[in-house]
């Protein structure tokens, strides 16, 4: 059974009640199906109600859920033949970022994604999806190849942020991210970015400069983690919930702010409830985004992307 979030408690209670009734009717051989049916309908209603009124902090919990599908869950469902390519040719391979080439609906593409682990062991290997400079330099190497061979670039964002240890500093974390930003603003092939889970700060942005930015319904994308924001602002990391609301970082907020271009619906209860259905949503959204860009010349792809960046931000008059 999937792990429950605290805001799902009423659902859990109802589900337990249904299970009790079922058991009772079996043991006593009494037909309680009308009652059970009624409760199950109530369950669906309640779940819909809860999921259409999620607070930003709830979305943070969903986006960071251990069972949340990662890139490797989606890749076989999105691509015909994903071939992973490794290493930055300078230092080592960083498995907090995966990349390679693939066929997407008949079109060759270059794919780059953050990857969080699904358990503690994998998370240690992948540094919890927090890339080091070599991860960003691998991404850059693969994206340069996409430009060379004229393939669209598809990126997937899912990271708490860039690695924050001394090794990352020694090898130029800032420079590695900055190069990604600069190069992505210059490529002349289409770039579609999709936030599939957590978009944490500069480490997320390094894969986030595109012609189109898509976000899964319950993903978020923020300048700073809500916990860090709370500890800077109110010297109290437990106020993360308040910070989550103040930062306006949900997919719905970003659409309103003009940063995101589209929201991909998730199955009721979150992406982890139905990976296949979520992947179908991602696939059709990317296909549509690519179709919208297909008449753009290489120059236009670069210019419109740059103009999009230029318009981000709010200036008073």
């Amino acid at each position, binding site marked *: 059974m999937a792990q429950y979030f605290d805001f799902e408690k009423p659902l859990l209670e109802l589900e337990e009640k249904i299970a009790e009734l079922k058991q009772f009717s079996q043991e006593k051989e009494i037909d309680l199906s009308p009652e059970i049916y009624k409760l199950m309908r109530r369950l669906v209603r309640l779940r819909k109600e809860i999921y259409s009124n999620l607070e930003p902090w709830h979305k943070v919990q969903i986006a960071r859920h251990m069972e949340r599908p990662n890139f490797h869950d989606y890749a076989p469902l999105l691509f015909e033949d994903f071939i992973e390519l490794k290493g930055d040719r300078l230092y080592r391979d960083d498995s907090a970022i995966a990349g390679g080439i693939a066929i997407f609906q008949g079109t060759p593409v270059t794919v780059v994604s953050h990857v969080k682990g699904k358990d503690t062991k994998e998370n240690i290997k992948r540094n919890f999806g927090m890339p080091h400079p070599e991860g960003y330099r691998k991404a850059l190497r693969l994206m340069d190849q996409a430009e060379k061979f004229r393939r669209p670039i598809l990126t997937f964002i899912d990271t708490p942020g860039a690695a924050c*240890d*001394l090794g990352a500093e020694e090898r130029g974390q800032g420079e590695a991210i900055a*190069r990604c930003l600069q190069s992505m603003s210059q490529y002349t092939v289409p770039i579609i970015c999709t936030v599939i889970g957590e978009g944490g700060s500069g480490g997320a942005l390094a894969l986030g400069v595109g012609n189109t930015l898509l976000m899964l319904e319950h993903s978020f994308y923020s300048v700073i983690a809500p916990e860090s924001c709370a500890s800077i602002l109110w010297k109290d990391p437990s106020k993360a919930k308040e910070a989550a609301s103040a*930062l306006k970082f949900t997919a719905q907020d970003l659409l309103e702010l003009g940063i995101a271009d589209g929201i991909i619906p998730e199955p009721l209860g979150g992406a982890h409830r139905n990976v296949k259905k979520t992947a179908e949503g991602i696939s059709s959204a990317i296909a549509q985004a690519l179709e919208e860009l297909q008449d753009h010349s290489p120059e236009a792809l670069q210019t419109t992307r740059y103009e999009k960046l230029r318009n981000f931000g*709010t200036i008073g008059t």
Partner: protein
Amino acid sequence: MLNNIFRKKRKYATVSSYQPKTTEAQEIANTSLESTSRLPDGLWVKCPKCGEALFKKDLVENLRVCTYCQYHFRIPARERLEHLVDPGTFEEWDRDLKTVNPLDFPEYEEKLAEASEKSDVSEAVLTGKGEISGFPVVLAINDADFMMGSMGSVAGEKIARAVERAIQLRYPVVIFSTSGGARMQEGILSLYQMAKTSGALGKLAQERLLYISVLTDPTFGGVTASYASLGDIQIAEPGALIGFTGPRVIRQTMRKELPSGAQTAEFNQDHGQIDMVVQRAEIPQVLARLLRVHQEGAKYGSVL
């Protein structure tokens, strides 16, 4: 000579509690991310590195560099500008761009009002054009007194506009960074200023125009991960703390003390991130030498 006179007086002067009590570099690292270029009230300042008492007026005249140990205090953008450009050549741009509160973020307006009062700049970066030893340049200078030089929509826009004007004018660009990073209060809009400024500098690079990045204390986060790291030439002031993640967070992550001198300009140079570490007083002259080599029309085949 004069210094000696002041030195004797040191005993009688009240030194305010402005700075860390220890001379350890690490201790400076712990505190310096929070403080500003503001000097304490009174006539005297204690150097946080060597502990000597410095006469404030002398310190400011000496470009805010300690005469005993060369410790570089922070310097406001306008003060830096004054000793950087040829007199009367600077023209400021976009001073009237107004910062608003797009997310209705709590207490942002108050912080902005406080920043305007504390500093003599209109936002975290000052931009314009001027001449250095007769070489025309486009300049952007961060000011730590304005919300720790953090980059929101206006700072990002000012830098992007300055770089675009440099392309029109065919001028090189010099940016002095000092910043805590992207400004939290404008959320995702601040984050994308990193992409905006990097994109503008990308265009400058495509035009084969020079960009010199001068990193000063402190440069961190979203600014290190965007414009500050993209220079054709990377210069840093001695002792400046430069990094992506702040020392406090690294210490928490690694659960141990950082080696002494970690994240200083010298550390960054040792690790291949910086071309040269240059004393504040020598920066104009070093810039002039670099600009001479790169001046328009100085491509292969011409004679300077």
